[in-house]
């Protein structure tokens, strides 16, 4: 019995969350989203809950307490074998048998980024957070740059510093008097 929620495969028989081959960085928030989906699946509801999550309490201005996911029972996360350094970040991943949330995988070093005071900054999409997203920044620049293209600018090139420029621009009749 298994359930797949990209990039995770939940093997209920072995209590392993297998990370897809080629995926070297896992966000804890993404992991927990997949856990919630898996445990409410047709297969998953037959088993105990895979993990619990805590945190994400709003501190205001789009900042929240970081997420801590506690793997229950014998559940562990395992990366595909290979010679690389995998990363688990964007929250705390704890629990698992013996307090080890990561299962051994040949050749793989896993860097768990843990923090006792982690926070999550929510970007401002939909006005929810304080920090603009990259796309929001780009849009703002584009909007400022193109504003003249779509707006009427009040100008009269015949005047400089309020003085009417005359002449034809020839030596006989140069621009002036400015």
């Amino acid at each position: 019995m298994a359930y797949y929620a990209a990039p995770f495969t939940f093997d209920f028989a072995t209590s392993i969350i297998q990370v897809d081959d080629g995926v070297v960085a896992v966000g804890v928030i993404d992991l927990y989203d997949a856990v919630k989906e898996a445990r409410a699946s047709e297969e998953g509801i037959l088993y105990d809950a895979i993990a619990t999550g805590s945190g994400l309490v709003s501190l205001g201005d789009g900042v929240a307490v970081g997420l801590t996911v506690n793997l229950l029972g014998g559940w562990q996360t395992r990366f595909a074998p290979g010679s690389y350094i995998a990363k688990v970040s964007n929250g705390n991943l704890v629990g698992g048998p013996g307090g080890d949330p990561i299962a051994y995988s040949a050749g793989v070093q896993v860097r768990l980024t843990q923090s006792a005071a982690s926070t999550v900054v929510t970007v401002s999409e939909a006005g929810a957070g304080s920090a603009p997203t990259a796309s929001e920044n780009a849009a703002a620049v584009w909007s400022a740059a193109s504003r003249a293209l779509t707006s009427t600018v009040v100008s009269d090139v015949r005047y400089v510093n309020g003085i009417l420029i005359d002449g034809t621009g020839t030596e006989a009749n140069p621009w002036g008097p400015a």
Partner: protein
Amino acid sequence: MAIFDDFSVSATGDVRHVSGTTVYSVLDLHAWLQDLADDAARAGNDLLDILSSNPSKLDGPRDAAVASRLNLINGFNIDATASQYINFGSIKQDSANVLYSGLKTIGGIVSGSPMYVVQNGSKLTKFWSDGHIQITVLAKTGGALIDSGLVRVYSRKWGQTYSDFEVDLSAGGENAAALATAADSNITLTEVQAAALSSKVTIAVGDTSQDLGNGNGSKLYKGTITLSGGCTVQEAYQYCQYLTREDSAATVNSEPGWRYRALNAAYTPNSAAPFGAFAGGKWFVAQGWFVTGVLPAESQAYQLTAHDGTTQSPPNVIGITIGNLLPGDRILVARDDGAGGILSNEFTLNGAHASGAATVTVNEAVSADHPASGVIRVGGKRYAYSSWAVKTFTLTGTLAESHSSGDPAFVPYIDTVTGTTAESVTFVYYASFTARVKVRRGSGADPIVPFETTVSVGSGGASTNAVRTSDV
């Protein structure tokens, strides 16, 4: 008055009752006849003296404390009228070709309970008062026992429980019929009111095979009692008692209601209530009768006994309801394994099951308390079934994969993603058990912390509400 005032003896030996209402014992009769037989001369209407033949002799000891067995000999005889005034013993006459046997009733009865005696299918004409009786009954005539000497004494008075008892009078002497009657508190109608129920209760004799849906399958019954028009079970009981009371003019199974005892000679009759007793709000219908048309509210208010003698109780359909749900929640309700999980190995597959199979057969008998249709999990895979019988589930589709012999299987009571705010299931109550309830919602809006609890499922079913705690 003395016995010689009440009886006469003719010159040819006819002993006849001529006056009075006193009932004399057989021994009194014998003593009187012997007293006459030693008289020097006949007197009055008692034409018996020392010159006559011996009129009587006792079979057995002369003991006033026990019933006497009197032989009227040498042509002396009594008739039916005279026999009504003689009791406490038996009288043989006509060279033992005629026998009047003693009959009495004993037992705890309502004071004044009327008795009637049925001999050879007919009621004897009453010459006795209500209450316990002590009489003589003609058991043999012309040298032949009447119905083998058998009589049955009944007491069936409206408002009382009934009673009857068969007695064998062939041996003479005095024989006792043990009867018991009591006020029947379940009779709440008058006889007129009960009679009016004929429009609501139909009784038909005839074989019918019926399945109560209690898991015992179809059973043979020998008759059907159909209720209609809002008739309650207790009313039907009263109507049936009405049909079988002493004064009944009804016919049940081709015999008069007043002597009807059972639908089949092989059945053990219920003397107190020929159609079954009513107690504790429930009608324990007599063997062989199937009852239909019972009001939904009284679906448990009766119990049948099939022709094969098995007790058949209507199924107690109960439910499990899970509330406080939202569309999209996944719910699982299954038997608890007693160790914090669900009982996922309730059954084991009987043989290998190939992918594409349309049925699932398990090794264990499926108890009645499984939903008539629902879901069976085989090796964790979810399959819907449309029906089950004994050990086989008929799937609505087919197996999506092969399963090995012995693979575990179980039947959840609820196993679905709800589209509403409550989920329920109904099934037949068989025995109480503990169910484990899981409600999960992990994707979409408003995920919740997995809710899990257990509920005790008893004869009244069970229900609980999910506790919705928002998940991060």
